[in-house]
């Protein structure tokens, strides 16, 4: 699997994601600066990392979503290349229109930084194939704007189409229907606030995130 990790000014989980990907895929990820108009030839997985791109100016992810590299990301996503957006990456994907809804300020206004139990709602996706539906996993969260909101019709559609990938098992940030992660309508784009790349080796205190990347690797290499 040939991974690309997009780097914006203010990204700060890009290295975490690259380390996890290299460890799991056995291949170094290409770090792609936001001004690049193209992704490296043969890229078959794209990661949009966490952080505070452009200092969260205007709205979290708003500036990053309009940067040159995102046009290439949109084209790749339309061709079916898997794209994951973690934390700020999820915000970027909603701002770019690759995922529906928006991520607003946490309902209690405070930054949340802790481990949160999640339920895997759909194990049929590219990203969740190595989990069981209904399984509980624990990922860390660290965000200020993770309160997922969309209109009721969009929320119903996400639920009906099995596009809610992960749901919080305890109140975290006020997200509508406790949504922690969603898929696009073709299932190749996942956005989630929790950080699977921060729980991939025992030294992290947990390895629940590892299977996300392993499952993806198996599917992409199949």
């Amino acid at each position, binding site marked *: 699997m040939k991974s690309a990790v997009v780097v914006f000014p203010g990204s700060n989980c890009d290295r975490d994601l690259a380390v996890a990907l290299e460890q799991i895929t056995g291949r170094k990820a290409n770090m792609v600066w936001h001004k690049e108009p193209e992704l490296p030839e043969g890229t078959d997985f794209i990661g949009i990392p966490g952080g505070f791109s452009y200092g969260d100016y*205007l*709205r979290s992810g*708003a500036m990053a979503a*309009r940067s040159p590299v995102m046009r290439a990301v949109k084209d790749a996503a339309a061709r079916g290349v898997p794209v994951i957006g973690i934390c700020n990456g999820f915000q970027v994907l*909603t*701002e770019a229109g690759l995922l*529906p*809804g*928006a991520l*607003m*300020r*946490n*309902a*209690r*206004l405070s930054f949340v930084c802790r481990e949160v139990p999640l339920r895997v709602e759909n194990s049929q996706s590219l990203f969740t194939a190595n989990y069981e539906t209904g399984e509980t996993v624990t990922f860390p969260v660290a965000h200020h704007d993770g*309160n997922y*909101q*969309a209109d009721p019709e969009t929320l119903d559609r996400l639920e009906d189409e099995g596009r809610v990938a992960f749901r919080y098992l305890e109140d975290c940030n*006020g997200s509508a229907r406790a949504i922690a992660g969603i898929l696009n309508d073709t299932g190749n784009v996942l956005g989630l606030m929790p950080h699977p790349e921060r729980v991939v080796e025992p030294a992290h205190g947990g390895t629940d995130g590892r299977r996300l990347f392993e499952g993806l690797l198996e599917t992409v290499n199949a």
Partner: protein
Amino acid sequence: MKARVFITLKKGVLDPQGKAIHHALEGLGFSGVNDVRAGKLIELDLAEGTSDADIEDMCCKLLANTVIENFRVERLETA
């Protein structure tokens, strides 16, 4: 030519910031406040001849997230 863009949260969208401001006002003893909604004001200094459609395009493509926000444009006479 100048224009002001007022960006507000859509009706029904929870505004935790507005709620916190409301709470703080009550804490200061202001009792007659029914509700508070916080928004943004963006001032644009524009080339003469910039059309309403151009400004609307700017709002839709970047300044406002129309999933959750409304916008209103006010043109100002150049002093």
